[in-house]
């Protein structure tokens, strides 16, 4: 049996290695390993809990907001703090636009190259491309001159011998199905999305006072003053600027991203039956109502692809296992540890690099195996949408229904690689349409004279109990993110983060159950073992981000992009 090794998986943040066994043109077994490890609690122990977000912000290489939000929520949960409505709305806008921007970047800049052949785009007829584009959207830029311009730019770039971000693509692969014109359309929008994302993320600079690394997060609320008449506060002018940027964000998603997603998906419908995975889904829900606290996307759990039941999430049922991870627990193997009592004692027992294969019967990853009631769970936009859909969330049911109808596929098509990629787009659309409403609520609240952004009563540590513990949940762009904190004598006693990619990239657990990436790869067809683009399609559909799960362990010991077939 042939074993394929893809190491590292490119176009992700962080480092991920996949080993897969192929038989009869299909993957029959798979192992996901990240050759890095984490240990944030070392840095946080003994610090003031109110400072934690400032450190956790730097966990991740790309999403600087998500670990700040989860951290301040964990401390607020531990101390029983309710943040004022304005702060909740400002956070919703910050999280919402992060989601929208991140999903667009993922689709065009990290995932599209698995489906779109850039080299083929060079052969496209710009006039035909424009007429194709006009059938899917009335986006004003879609003209023959525009597509010709993009093609010329691309040709000049390739002529310099610098494929740059497009290097490592599987050009001309038999699994690439788009006609040249669709490839050119998608490539043009790849470039347009670059310009678009630069603008919309200015919202973080306005609400965060600084971007990258926004500075206005605060336990108990936000540190941005709200005053319609002050130059130095969130004032009427700034609200108008944000409103314009949100409009721009929504337009692009409605008129470019979603039409492109549907156009590309229509050529790859076979991927609606590939990449199903573990079939258990976990979402923490997101976007609390500023008054009631009820989340816009409801939290919940779905088991065994059964959409007739949604179970409530109980954080007590989360535990991390290390039976196949390079860590040791003081309690020994075979038992999970709840994040409140999490341990990170690294003990590498894998082969000495450079090596051909990992010893996958034993420990083979730096990623722990989080499980919910001992079950592997998939997290991310698909989990979020399935939970919302099965809970009867109207906006989700409407949007999912439209997409299924357009592609003429049943709801079971969602349990797939294509479903994952589609769900990310639908999530982006619903959020982009919801964002202006939160801004409007904020404007109304300010209009009524409520300028509160911070709940101050528990700011002073003398008001805290001698011991407290809490958790902060955030449904981040990549899914369920949780921070758990234990506080003793005003200081951090323990701190653990269970991040989305840990759930998804986890290796086998104490029961030998595969993690979500591993399970999703089973049955994936492999046309050419030397160019396994199909592996990338399924893995990228999860939007892996291991920059926060892990860190570089051995910068020089790892090969540059290599695919090895044994």
């Amino acid at each position, binding site marked *: 049996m042939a074993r394929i090794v893809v190491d590292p998986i490119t176009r992700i*943040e962080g480092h991920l290695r996949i080993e897969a066994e192929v038989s009869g043109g299909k993957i029959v077994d798979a192992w996901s390993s990240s050759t890095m490890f*984490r*240990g*944030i609690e*070392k*840095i946080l122990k003994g610090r003031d809990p109110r400072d934690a977000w400032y*450190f956790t912000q*730097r*966990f991740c*290489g*790309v999403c*600087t907001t998500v670990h700040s939000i989860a951290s301040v929520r964990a401390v607020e949960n531990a101390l029983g703090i309710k943040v004022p409505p304005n702060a909740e709305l400002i956070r919703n806008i910050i999280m919402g636009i992060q989601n929208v921007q991140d999903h667009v*970047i993922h689709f065009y*800049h990290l995932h599209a190259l698995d489906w779109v052949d850039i080299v083929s785009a060079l052969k496209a007829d710009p006039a035909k491309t424009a007429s194709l584009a006009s059938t899917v959207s009335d986006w004003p830029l879609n003209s023959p001159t525009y597509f010709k311009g993009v093609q010329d*730019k691309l040709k000049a*770039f390739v002529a310099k011998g*610098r494929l*740059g*971000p497009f290097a490592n693509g599987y050009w001309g692969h038999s699994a690439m199905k788009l006609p040249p014109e669709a490839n050119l359309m998608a490539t043009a929008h790849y*470039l347009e999305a*670059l*310009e678009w*994302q*630069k*603008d919309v*993320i*200015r919202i973080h600079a306005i609400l965060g006072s600084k*971007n*990258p*690394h926004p500075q206005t997060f605060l336990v108990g609320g936000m540190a941005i003053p709200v005053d319609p008449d002050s130059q130095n506060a969130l004032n009427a002018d700034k609200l108008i600027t944000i409103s314009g940027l949100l409009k721009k964000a929504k337009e692009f998603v409605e008129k470019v991203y979603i039409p492109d997603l549907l156009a590309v998906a229509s050529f790859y419908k076979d991927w609606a039956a590939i990449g199903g995975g573990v079939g258990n889904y976990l979402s923490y829900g997101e976007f609390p109502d500023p008054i009631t606290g009820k989340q816009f996307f409801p939290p919940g759990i779905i088991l065994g692809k059964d959409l007739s039941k949604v179970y409530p999430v109980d954080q007590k049922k989360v535990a991390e296992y290390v039976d196949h991870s390079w860590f040791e627990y003081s309690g020994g193997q075979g038992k999970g540890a709840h994040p409140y009592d999490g341990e990170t004692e690294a003990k590498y027992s894998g082969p000495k690099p450079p090596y051909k294969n990992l010893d996958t019967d034993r420990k083979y990853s730096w990623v722990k195996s989080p499980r919910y009631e001992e079950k592997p769970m998939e997290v991310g936009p698909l989990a979020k949408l399935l939970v919302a859909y099965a809970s009867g969330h109207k906006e989700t049911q409407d949007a999912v229904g439209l997409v299924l109808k357009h592609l003429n596929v049943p709801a079971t098509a969602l349990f797939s690689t294509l479903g994952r990629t589609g769900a990310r787009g639908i999530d982006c659309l619903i959020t982009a349409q919801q964002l202006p409403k939160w801004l409007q609520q904020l404007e109304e609240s300010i209009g009524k004279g409520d300028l509160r952004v911070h709940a101050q009563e528990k700011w002073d540590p003398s008001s805290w109990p001698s011991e407290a513990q809490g958790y902060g949940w955030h449904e981040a762009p990549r899914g369920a993110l949780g921070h758990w904190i234990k506080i003793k004598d005003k200081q951090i006693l323990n701190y653990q983060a269970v991040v989305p990619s840990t759930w998804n990239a986890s290796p086998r657990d104490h029961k030998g159950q595969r993690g979500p990436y591993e399970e999703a790869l089973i049955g994936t067809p492999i046309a050419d073992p030397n160019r396994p683009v199909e592996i990338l399609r399924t893995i990228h559909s999860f939007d892996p981000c291991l*920059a926060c799960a892990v*860190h*570089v362990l051995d*910068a*020089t010991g*790892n090969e*540059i992009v290599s695919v090895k077939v044994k």
Partner: protein
Amino acid sequence: MRTLLLGIGNTLMNDDAAGVLVIQNLAAKFFFPEELTVLDGGTLGLDLLPYLEGVDRLLVVDAVETGGPVGSIIRMTGDDIPLALATKVSPHQMGLKDLLLVADLQGYAPKEMVLWGVQPGSIEMDIELTPEVAASIELLEGKVLAELAAWGITATPKSN
């Protein structure tokens, strides 16, 4: 001429913090003329694209894997930078390399690029520098100031 001084690195990973520390120290010690932007880029890639637009000269400070002794410093210029990053000498090769190429593709790559780097000893998750890299921080600050001076950008010490 607009100039960007960009510190890259993860401040939670030992020596990986070097680039960010150098620019933070300089910003704390000196006033710079308006044509210079000093930016803590963290480990971000594409999110930094807006800051490259309209920039004529780019000076990057980063931890760079050169194979040399820990704490040794290196200067690279122009096309050597993306090329060096392509052969994976920096822990942030994905972000910065892609960023420069995308800027080039979009037609606003800086005309002049210089990178000052330091060889890291440890990039484990912790906030201490190794003694070798800690000893090189001030040296790097001096190199960066000299580079800026050669571009006609004067740093004025802040009082106290």
